[in-house]
């Protein structure tokens, strides 16, 4: 057991030493991996921020149901009861015609003009919040159903753009995932190629080790450590790149956010996804070197 640990440590430091001894080519490989991983990571960070901002705006749409009748009429009461009884509806807020006029008067600054009106021109409104988990189609159906009722003048969806934004973010997230998979494959190819070159460079050494009774596992070990280390360093590089980029963007974003009157800030990656990226880089590097070493050891017939 102890000698096994020792052997792993030896291979680990041997690989680390090999990487350190050729800093130029190591840096290039790590930089290429870093840039490759930085792209999906940065997009992930931006999406994460966008979701946080849009989530703060509203958790869904609301539907304004404008009444032909007064809320206190029989039709108005029946409609309200139906709305509240509908399992797809979260809550219903009643804004009577008077309240609406009062609100309009306060906000528009047209108080004097409105005072001259003989009759209140505004209808009463039920503001309905559908449950947030409804799909766009279900929402559409609800709105159509309410629109068809005789008590209703018009049913209108508000804040639908929030839902659209949500759908768009969903789409973007899927695209980032896809891009991430593609670039992960790219990382495997990059590491695989460097490991392949290392195997060919050390062909002589591999043959001799094999000849004096080194097992394939012994021969493979330093290459596996080397690939894993390159993957881990590449992931750390990607984190640094994304961190610097977000830092550089945070000023303009804050300016933009203050123009919109929100306190939204660009936030960096959390600890969990960062750790995940580093682990992922290591796993990709290990996998790539495992594939490359196995293929080329076979071709060396050792």
């Amino acid at each position, binding site marked *: 057991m102890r000698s*096994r640990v020792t052997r792993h440590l030896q291979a680990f430091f041997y690989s680390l030493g090999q990487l350190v001894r050729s800093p130029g080519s190591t840096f290039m490989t790590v930089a290429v991996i870093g840039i490759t991983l930085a792209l999906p990571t940065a997009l992930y960070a931006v999406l994460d921020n966008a979701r946080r901002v849009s989530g703060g705006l509203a958790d869904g749409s609301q539907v304004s149901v404008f009444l032909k009748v007064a809320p206190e009429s029989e039709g108005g009461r029946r409609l309200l009861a139906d709305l509240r009884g509908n399992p797809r509806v979260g809550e219903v807020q009643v804004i009577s015609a008077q309240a609406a006029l009062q609100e309009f008067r306060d906000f528009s600054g047209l108080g004097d003009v409105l005072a001259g009106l003989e009759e209140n021109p505004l209808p009463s409104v039920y503001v309905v919040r559908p449950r947030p988990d409804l799909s766009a189609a279900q929402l559409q159906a609800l709105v159509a159903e309410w629109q068809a009722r005789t008590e209703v003048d018009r049913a209108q969806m508000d804040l639908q753009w929030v839902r659209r934004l949500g759908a768009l973010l969903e789409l973007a997230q899927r695209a980032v995932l896809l891009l991430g998979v593609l670039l992960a494959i790219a990382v495997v190819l990059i590491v695989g190629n460097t490991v392949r070159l290392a195997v060919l460079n050390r062909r002589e050494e591999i043959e001799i*080790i094999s000849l004096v009774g080194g097992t394939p596992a012994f021969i493979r070990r330093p290459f596996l450590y080397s690939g894993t280390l390159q993957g881990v360093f590449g992931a750390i590089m990607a984190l640094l790149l994304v961190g610097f980029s977000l830092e550089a963007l945070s000023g303009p974003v804050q300016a933009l956010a203050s123009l919109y009157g929100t306190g939204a800030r660009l936030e960096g990656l959390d600890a969990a996804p960062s750790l995940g990226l580093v682990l992922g880089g290591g796993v990709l590097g290990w996998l790539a070197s495992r594939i490359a070493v196995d293929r080329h050891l076979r071709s060396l017939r050792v």
Partner: protein
Amino acid sequence: MIRFADVSKRYPGGKEALHAVSFEIADGAMVFLTGHSGAGKTTLLKLITLLERPSRGQVVVNNRNLARFPWRRVPLLRREIGCVFQDHRLLADRTVFDNVALPLVVSGVPERELARRVRAALDKVGLLSKEHSYPLSLSGGEQQRVGIARAVVNRPALLLADEPTGNLDPALSDEVMDLFLAFHQYGTTVLIATHDLRHIRRLRKPVLVLKAGRLEKQIGFDDA
């Protein structure tokens, strides 16, 4: 120690390197393998270390039949055999000590035991003072002696050498041959491929003569 029974080896592409070769080398013997270049000497040695497998026939080494010998256990077999090459095959980026230590490192010998055995092997070939040198700073004869130290550091039962004196002048080459003779006298089985008939005449050991892949003659096996 080594038994070949009707062994043929045909390489992909059709060239038959060995044809129906049969012989037996007893434990502790020292045998020369000779013949012109291309007669099949190297192929024969490769069959013993399982660098190649025979197309036909059986090879038995140290009581193990190598036909259908599992790949997984090949490294263990190779640890019982020491190999010396014409071009030494030392690693230029490691010291003499590290080169000789390699067979012990791959079999996981603990550090202290390892250092002791490496120094013992270097002492036997007279290069203890060079343990920190790099191979390229040594003369050809010294490099070959490092190669021999590496081959014997595991105390193998069988020592194979492929033209070990091919690059050396007569005096150095006698020195190297005498080392093999010494290991043979300690009880190691030694098989040396060489086309230098001078050593064969001088040491008077049994000889296998290969010609174009066939075993042409066996000399001196009756009294070996």
